[in-house]
């Protein structure tokens, strides 16, 4: 007898049970962050979860005060959840394909910070720009 596709899909939709486990992991990591400052990252793409479970997980975490969009070789979104210190980070490539989805337990996701090397390069770039402006002013 052939398996019924609808039954298969219903069984799959029932879920893997990983949603609650991830929430527990987030809770433990958040506790550690509060007590010791230790940060943690959970790679959601490495965990089998149904689309329904993923939606439930995101809904359970809720939305917080910060939502940031980053354009760096494709769009990335960083959202603070309803629990301070718990962030949802999504990376897409230049074709808008999903490349990774993470929960970061940290005061500030690393991708949001200006990076040291970029800051150094920016300082040099701004200095060059000021030189050019000075040169133009002198010439005029």
């Amino acid at each position, binding site marked *: 007898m052939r*398996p019924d596709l609808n039954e298969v899909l219903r069984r799959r939709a029932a879920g893997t049970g990983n949603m609650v486990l991830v929430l527990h992991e987030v809770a433990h990591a958040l506790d550690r962050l509060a007590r010791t400052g230790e940060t943690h990252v959970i*790679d959601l793409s490495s965990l089998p979860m149904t689309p329904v479970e993923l939606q439930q997980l995101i809904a359970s975490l809720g939305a917080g005060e910060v939502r940031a969009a980053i354009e760096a070789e494709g769009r990335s979104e960083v959202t603070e959840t309803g629990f301070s210190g718990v962030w949802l980070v999504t990376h897409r490539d230049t074709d808008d394909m999903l490349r990774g989805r*993470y929960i970061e337990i940290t005061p500030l996701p690393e*991708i949001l910070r200006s990076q040291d*090397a970029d800051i150094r390069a920016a300082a040099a770039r701004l200095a060059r720009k000021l030189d050019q402006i000075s040169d133009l002013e002198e010439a005029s």
Partner: protein
Amino acid sequence: MIRRQQTLGERLEERGISRRSFLKFCTTTASLLALPPAFAPRIAEALESQRRPSVIWLSFQECTGCSESILRAGSPSIESLIFEAISLDYHETLQAAAGHQAEAAREQAMAENMGKYLVVVDGSVPLGNPGFSTVAGQSNVETLKQVAKGAAAVICMGTCSAFGGIPYAKPNPTGAVPVSEIITDKPIVNVPGCPPIPAVMTSVIAHYITFGSLPELDDLGRPKVFYGQNIHDRCYRRPFYERGQFAQSFDDEGAKAGWCLYKLGCKGPTTYNACAVLKWNEGTSFPIEAGHGCLGCSEPNFWDKGSFYAPLSTATELGSGTVAAGVLAGAVLGAGAGYAGRKMQEKGKTGPFEAPPVADAGQKENS
């Protein structure tokens, strides 16, 4: 080709690519390699500070499709940057130098990086008449032995160098063999595919640069993270297979409805690769999504496993009556069919589905 003393960090700066982009690349690379996210900073640090490793690319009996695949990764993608960021000291198709100058560049790179350089090979090696394939008057097998001697590792790019590929197919007129039959004293990683997926190649290199070792390999020398699951298990058409809904021809209603291509010869159940996940052409689709069955190009001897258009259950010339029973059994067995199909391919004689033909199976034979 590129100033070797530049680090990747310096090169990123020169090209105006932000560290955020780079950090993002390292994070998603860690995911690709199934590493914990905490490894991303380590990958970034290693890639950023390393001098670009010397890579010598040897092309033997091949079609250059593997080079095309890698180099046509979206431009300017970070992947292509990483590829560019290695010091590609020898590649017959890409290098500007020719003749004696080209060979001198290879010898210089080997001397300067003895014991540390990577060798990438695409193409199989003919052991018949040495004249079948030579470069600068030297046979492929001599070149391979000479260059591999001082290598840290050998990466076999594509099915030809990994398993012999099309030149190895019957009757193998050139006596072609894969690299692993010649080089036995160096670490070898096989990245098969005709051609392989660009991100797989760049990730293997990223892993090597970061950890100084090759990724974990399966029993065919392939990185487990990319070749650990078969196409069928990750195929979006899998539910149709489980329900026994198969396209019977390339233009029937089933094909238009996106049903399973098993009966049209799809080799997904016996093919281990990441096409269904990583996809092709910058993540656009993969052969099955485009409406054609998987050819099984990343498996050994894929060219000699029967017709590309015969179902796995008949690929080794079984009687036509077994087709219906095989497909029916496949529908019922689900995941077991992949294993059974694979065992059948290994045996090369009997089919996995030995049940007698069922007249009322509801499946028409695909003659």
